[in-house]
């Protein structure tokens, strides 16, 4: 035996050359035992396969040939050796069954069958035959059984290595296919359909599907292609958590469930699952995130029974799909939140715009309606004053100018309200041009000098003479006019008013400075509010509408700028208008 083993040089480790070993073994045995034929035939569940053969004076024959197990039953010697596991010797074979075998089996007079057992199962047999009349002696065959066993182990080893290699390839293929789906950013429905198709292909199953847990039901995520009777109802009953039913353990305990017809016969729950899926067998694995059960992934109607490897592939697919699902969910939630926030903002903006429009319309209409009675009253007052309606008694003639003055003020108030509402309506629709601030300040200054300034005040413009901004000229004129008119009003006792223009870090800055009454600290917050008339102004008898500064600030903001104020009671105020000078043409010359 030792010699035999050494001579044959059995290699149990290297994959791939098991057949070479077995070939050498049968040749060695045939030559040493002086036999005419020797074959090594493996047995598994379904077939007998010739793994190696020796033919005296000929080439190895029949290698790779397979025979159904039923063939065994017609060969009593072979059957006995396989069932008992003991060496059997005898006469010839029945050579009537296979015409191809007939020449090989012809004239065989003695046969020896050496069963090679791994554990309790006979995994292969060595079949030796002699055409000469020389029966096999037990001693000849002893060592052969152990040597043959080594060869069979080598074969099994080689097969395991092959299986492993196939598994590796399959695993890699699975990963590649799955990651392709995962990376494809498909719509959820398309993703789960593709993933299921892939799983069905990899597990060699008729169908595969993801089932989402919804209350006490599992609802199919998609319609598997050609799902047969299942298309009628894509729902399965989902047993509650803690139930002993197989599906409950899949959903909630992370176990896999493999059911085939014979197993299901004894278990009504499993049978129900098979029945409801109209399947011959089912492999179900959990589909869940780390924390939350989502449902199950199933494959059914396998080609040749589900294996551990199929389970591994399906778990992998379910895990990847859970991650994808989480991604969809997160995206969905984010999109929902974003949409809700956008809706809210839009509704708010619409509401504000509508309120603004209503306010403006109301102001316009109100102003217009106010003008009608004023026209009549002022008109008749002027006629009374001019004497067109006859001579007035002395006392009446004295009050008419008072009424005229008040009506004029009211007229101004209405005009200002109209201007304000018109400007506010226009604020979103600017007529942007290049504005020369120096020229603008001088226009405003000239206009004030001829109207409101009065002899006891002076108005000076200090300007570098070359500052330009991009803005709506009409609106800028309104702003600056308001600021100057404000400064005039707050300087009842006269004094100097100044418009200072300068550049400061990308901004054009216009200061309107007066040395008048100033504004009390408590009045400052009201300054820019509509109708925000100041207590100090009212008590000082300063006329105003309470709209000028509100309008000025709105217009400044609409033109990309700001208005701020610094003031001291009794010392005067400085209103500062800032406008961006970005994009404006700057003149090189200095104003004379």
């Amino acid at each position, binding site marked *: 035996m030792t010699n035999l083993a050494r001579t044959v040089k059995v290699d149990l480790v290297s994959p791939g050359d098991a057949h070479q070993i077995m070939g050498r073994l049968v040749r060695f045995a045939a030559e040493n035992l002086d036999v005419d034929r020797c074959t090594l035939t493996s047995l598994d569940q379904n077939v007998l396969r010739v793994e190696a053969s020796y033919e005296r004076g000929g080439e190895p024959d029949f290698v790779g040939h397979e025979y159904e197990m039923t063939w065994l039953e017609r060969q009593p010697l072979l059957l006995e050796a396989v069932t008992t596991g003991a060496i059997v010797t005898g006469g010839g074979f029945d050579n009537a069954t296979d015409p191809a075998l007939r020449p090989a089996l012809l004239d065989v007079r003695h046969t020896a069958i050496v069963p090679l057992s791994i554990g309790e199962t006979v995994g292969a047999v060595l079949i030796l035959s002699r055409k000469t009349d020389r029966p096999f002696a037990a001693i000849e065959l002893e060592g052969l059984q152990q040597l043959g066993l080594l060869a069979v182990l080598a074969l099994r080893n080689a097969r395991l290595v092959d299986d492993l290699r196939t598994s590796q390839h399959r695993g890699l293929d699975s990963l590649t296919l799955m990651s392709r789906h995962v990376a494809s950013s498909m719509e959820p429905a398309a993703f789960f359909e593709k993933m299921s198709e892939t799983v069905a292909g990899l597990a060699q199953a008729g169908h595969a599907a993801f089932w989402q847990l919804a209350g006490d039901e599992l609802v199919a995520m998609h319609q598997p292609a050609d799902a047969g009777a299942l298309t009628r109802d894509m729902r399965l009953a989902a047993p509650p958590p803690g139930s002993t039913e197989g599906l409950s353990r899949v959903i909630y305990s992370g176990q896999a469930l493999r059911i085939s017809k014979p197993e299901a016969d004894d278990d009504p729950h499993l049978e129900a699952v098979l029945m409801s899926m109209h399947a011959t067998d089912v492999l179900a694995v959990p589909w869940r995130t780390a924390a939350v059960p989502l449902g199950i992934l199933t494959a059914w109607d396998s080609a040749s029974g589900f294996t551990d490897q199929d389970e591994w592939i399906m778990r992998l697919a379910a895990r990847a799909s859970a991650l994808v699902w989480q991604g969809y969910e997160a995206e969905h939630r984010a999109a929902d939140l974003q949409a809700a926030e956008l809706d809210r903002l839009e509704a708010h903006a619409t509401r504000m715009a509508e309120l603004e429009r209503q306010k403006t319309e109301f102001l316009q209409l109100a102003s217009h309606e106010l003008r009608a009675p004023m026209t009549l009253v*002022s008109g008749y007052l002027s*006629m009374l004053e*001019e004497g067109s309606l006859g001579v007035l008694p002395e006392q009446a003639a004295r009050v008419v100018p008072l009424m005229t003055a008040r009506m004029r003020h009211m007229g101004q108030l209405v005009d200002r309200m109209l201007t304000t509402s018109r400007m506010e309506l226009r604020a979103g629709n600017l007529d942007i041009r290049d504005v020369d601030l120096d020229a603008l300040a001088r226009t405003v200054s000239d206009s004030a000098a001829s109207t409101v300034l009065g002899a006891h005040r002076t108005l000076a413009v200090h300007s570098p003479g070359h500052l330009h901004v991009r803005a709506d000229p009409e609106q800028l004129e309104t702003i600056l006019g308001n600021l100057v008119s404000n400064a005039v009003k707050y300087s009842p006792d006269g004094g100097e008013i100044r418009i200072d223009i300068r550049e400061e870090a990308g901004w054009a800055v216009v200061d309107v400075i007066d040395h008048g009454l100033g504004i009390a600290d408590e009045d400052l917050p009201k300054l820019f509010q509509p109708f925000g008339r100041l207590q100090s102004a009212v008590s000082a008898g300063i006329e105003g509408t309470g709209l000028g500064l509100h309008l000025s600030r709105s217009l400044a903001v609409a033109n990309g700028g700001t208005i701020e104020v610094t003031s001291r009671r009794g010392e005067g105020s400085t209103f500062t208008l800032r406008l961006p000078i970005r994009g404006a043409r700057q003149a090189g010359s200095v104003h004379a």
Partner: protein
Amino acid sequence: MLDASGEIRLLLVDDDADVAEMYELQLSAHGYQVSIARTGAEAIDMARSAAPHLIYLDLGLPGMHGFEVLAHLRSEPDTRDIPVVILTNFSEPELIERSRALGARDYLVKAHTPPAALAAATRNRLLAPKAS
């Protein structure tokens, strides 16, 4: 422009009867022959029949807007050449621009136009009528 009698006829179109009457009072005192129309349709009829020398036209009229009246007057040979001055309490720049485009000679805001000012404007535009 004036006919033989030296009479100057004005047509005042305003739905506010009080205001119309006030202006009429002043203009009549200055010797103008003033007719008053309350609606656009009336204004067109009277412009055809009375052949006024000048029309003061309000914009916010019931039924037919002042601009429609103006366009209508401009489209008819009989009234095409009668000068029209808008006299209204609306003062939006868009309206002023539009009325110019439609051929109005001037645009007066009632609240800023006391009766004496209207009489002066009329005198400047036409001639003073012969003293009656």
